[in-house]
């Protein structure tokens, strides 16, 4: 969890291991619209201690599920503008398939489980807590917290 921008190069460097044949990453950016409304930026609020703990559990699960070398995740808190990096996931692995799949697993789990909340600022001056994600999780999950799931 990061309250200020983090160097992507630093995050990536931790993944650059001798046994890894490559890495793949996902960057989530602040978009300029949501559900048709022009967005000026957004504020992320997090339950930092639990978000860190749950994030580490997700990375551990990815290490156990997939044949990967290392995995790193970063999530911003605070005030972000359109185009800013909100979330960053990186996974290195001996072979690409595991890297892609683990990266997808981590971002999907973060969106479902990590206690972070998004307050959108609209161009008309209004703000609103985003109600729910409509994310798709293609892999099998033992978790179903009934909180925000539209995929069953």
């Amino acid at each position, binding site marked *: 969890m990061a309250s200020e921008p983090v160097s992507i190069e630093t995050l990536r460097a931790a993944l650059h291991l001798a046994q890894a044949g490559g890495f793949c990453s996902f960057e*989530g950016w602040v978009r300029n619209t949501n559900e048709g409304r022009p967005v000026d930026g957004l504020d*992320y*609020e*997090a*339950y930092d*201690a*639990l*978000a860190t*703990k*749950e994030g580490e559990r997700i990375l551990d699960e990815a290490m156990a599920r997939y044949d990967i070398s290392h995995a790193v995740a970063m*999530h911003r808190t605070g005030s972000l503008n359109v185009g800013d990096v*909100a*979330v960053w996931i990186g996974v290195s692995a001996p072979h690409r398939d595991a890297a892609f799949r683990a990266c997808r697993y981590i*971002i999907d789990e*973060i*969106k*479902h*489980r*990590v*206690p*972070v*909340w*998004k*307050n959108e600022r609209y161009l008309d001056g209004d703000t609103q*807590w*985003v*109600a*729910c*994600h409509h*994310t798709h999780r293609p892999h099998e999950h033992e978790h179903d*917290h*009934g*909180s*925000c799931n539209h995929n069953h």
Partner: protein
Amino acid sequence: MRIHLEYFAQLRELAGQKLQIVETTHETVGPLYDELRETYGFPFSPERLRVAINGDFAPWTQPLREGDLVVFIPPVTGG
């Protein structure tokens, strides 16, 4: 017993405070949430929330103890 509450996001705004100490006789968080929901008009039914006690996720049926820190976790929207 005294229970410490910490609020986040929409719940923090509706409660008008970040931290609160309540005196309660409820044995679990379910009836405590119902009471707070009534007081502050929280929009979420308990099925949509998770609860954390003393820094980690906990079942709604976990017995409350004096001094517990309870956090009600609205549907998360990170990423």
